[in-house]
């Protein structure tokens, strides 16, 4: 059976070049970077080289990069660490309604410590309006956190415009760029942000490693305390092989970005064009043009996401859904709901996230396999039956 992996938003595969770079640090180069001998020196040099590569991808300085254990950790660290460091100035935070839970839940935990959140709404395409951010900022706003791009619907935010608004207020601006870094050009200087989160497994690096970029001079409360690693801001023995992998992935992303974007956009557009034309009552979610090159997200009406995923999986296709039934919490995607998509339609969400290992043939396979799956589930759906009866009555 053909196997087609279209769940790169969950995790990208590890590129062979990245794996090769990591192997020595899983085997012979096992030293602790903090040790004062040649084993330690080798490991330390590898970590610092990786730091340089990640910094280069972002147009940042090496000493502004803090390695973490994941994108989620980077977001927790940024939101909590930046807000706590500023709390003498105020306790108000602004974030968009479609932030990742690692941002929103971190803010929720800060609310228990007296912080307040203003959630900025998004439009039907998932876009944040910089004017809305301006209106949400108060005298006591200390932190604004708006994601660079949304992994579920692909929408890319106008971070540069938002940062001009935030700068006027003097608040710190953090962006969760986990879905963006390594996929689209992200330059911290151009974005004008103060802090930025990224994760290795979003751009063909390993899982279990991320980074937080913090502009020089911006204060943050250390996340893990103990040793002197990462400038004393994130203690704990460095995950050397993963950090080396992250560095190599960053290097490759920088070198190949243009060709990757071209390839991904062309196969994505084939899917975006082909799917709604083959399936009635389906539509693209997210912004039509301001979107991640690998993101093709849809809602398919009258049926539910998990059953679609199961039937796709049966035919070798891996995808994802924002349906309530696919989440352990049984809640429909907060992103789709914030975009004004009704609950019953959000249950029919289907996300294909494309990666560099995908080909045009993969997309053609999906376009061949999916329509009969939709027909099959609709033939079972009481919602579709109701709709059909009403339509027939109308004619």
């Amino acid at each position, binding site marked *: 059976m053909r196997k087609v992996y279209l769940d790169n938003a969950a995790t990208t595969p590890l590129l062979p070049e990245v794996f090769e770079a990591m192997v020595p640090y899983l085997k012979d180069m096992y030293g602790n970077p903090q040790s004062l001998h040649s084993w330690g020196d080798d490991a330390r040099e590898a970590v610092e080289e990786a730091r340089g590569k990640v910094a280069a991808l972002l147009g940042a300085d090496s000493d502004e990069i803090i390695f973490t254990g994941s994108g989620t950790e980077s977001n927790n660290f940024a939101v909590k660490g930046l807000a706590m460091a500023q709390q003498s100035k105020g306790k108000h935070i602004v974030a968009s309604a479609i932030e990742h839970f690692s941002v929103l839940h971190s803010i929720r935990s800060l609310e228990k410590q007296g912080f307040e959140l203003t959630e900025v709404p998004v439009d039907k395409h998932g876009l944040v309006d910089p004017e809305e951010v301006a209106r949400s900022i108060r005298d006591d706003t200390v932190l604004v956190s708006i994601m660079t791009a949304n992994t579920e619907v692909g929408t890319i935010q106008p971070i540069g415009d938002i940062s001009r608004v935030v700068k006027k207020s003097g608040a710190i601006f953090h962006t969760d760029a986990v879905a963006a870094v390594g996929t689209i050009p992200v330059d911290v200087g151009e974005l004008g942000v103060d802090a930025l989160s990224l994760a290795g497994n979003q751009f063909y690096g390993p899982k279990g490693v991320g980074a937080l970029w913090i502009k020089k001079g911006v204060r943050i409360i250390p996340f893990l305390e103990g040793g002197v690693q990462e400038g004393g801001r994130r203690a704990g023995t460095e995950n050397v092989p993963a950090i080396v992998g992250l560095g190599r992935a960053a290097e490759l992303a920088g070198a190949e970005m243009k060709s990757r974007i071209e390839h991904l956009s062309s196969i994505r557009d084939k899917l975006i064009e082909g799917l709604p034309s083959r399936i009635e009552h389906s539509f693209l979610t997210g912004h039509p043009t301001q979107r991640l090159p690998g993101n093709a997200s849809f809602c398919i009406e*009258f*049926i*539910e*996401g*998990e*059953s679609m*995923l*199961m039937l796709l*999986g*049966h035919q070798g296709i891996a995808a994802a859904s924002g*349906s*309530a*039934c*696919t989440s*352990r919490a*049984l*809640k*429909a995607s907060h992103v789709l709901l914030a975009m004004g998509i*009704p*609950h*019953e339609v959000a*249950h029919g969400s289907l996300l294909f996230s494309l990666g560099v290992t995908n080909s045009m043939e993969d997309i053609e396979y999906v376009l061949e396999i999916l329509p009969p799956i939709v027909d099959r589930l609709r*033939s*079972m*759906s*009481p*919602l*579709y*039956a109701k709709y059909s009866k009403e339509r027939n009555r109308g004619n």
Partner: protein
Amino acid sequence: MPAYSEKVMDHFMNPRNVGEIEDADGIGEEGNPVCGDMMTFYIKVNDNRLSDVKFKTFGCGAAIAVSSIVSEMAIGKTIEEARKITPSVVAKELGGLPKNKYHCSNLGAQALNLAIDDYQRKQGMKVKPRKRRKNDHE
């Protein structure tokens, strides 16, 4: 994807008794599309026995499998026997359900019971209205 038993997968991949009964003797609808699951059961009754049961379901894999097995279990049973198809019996028959999918078995049993209620009402029996299932998604 939750870990589904082989039997759940079988009933999901090959659901039995999907459809509607045009001249049904009783119809029961449970759940709502906002929650993400909705089932409609249609029954035919002959001599106090369910001679035919059909369903339509909007929902996840578990919801579809539950509908299918409930329909299969109900066909040929007397009204009294069919009333004994409870959520736990359904879940057991399916070889278990993941914890967060257990409510699907409630839905299936409830939809069948509502169809029987509807039939009995049409027969002139007094049937107490049931409480709507709590919206457990929101």
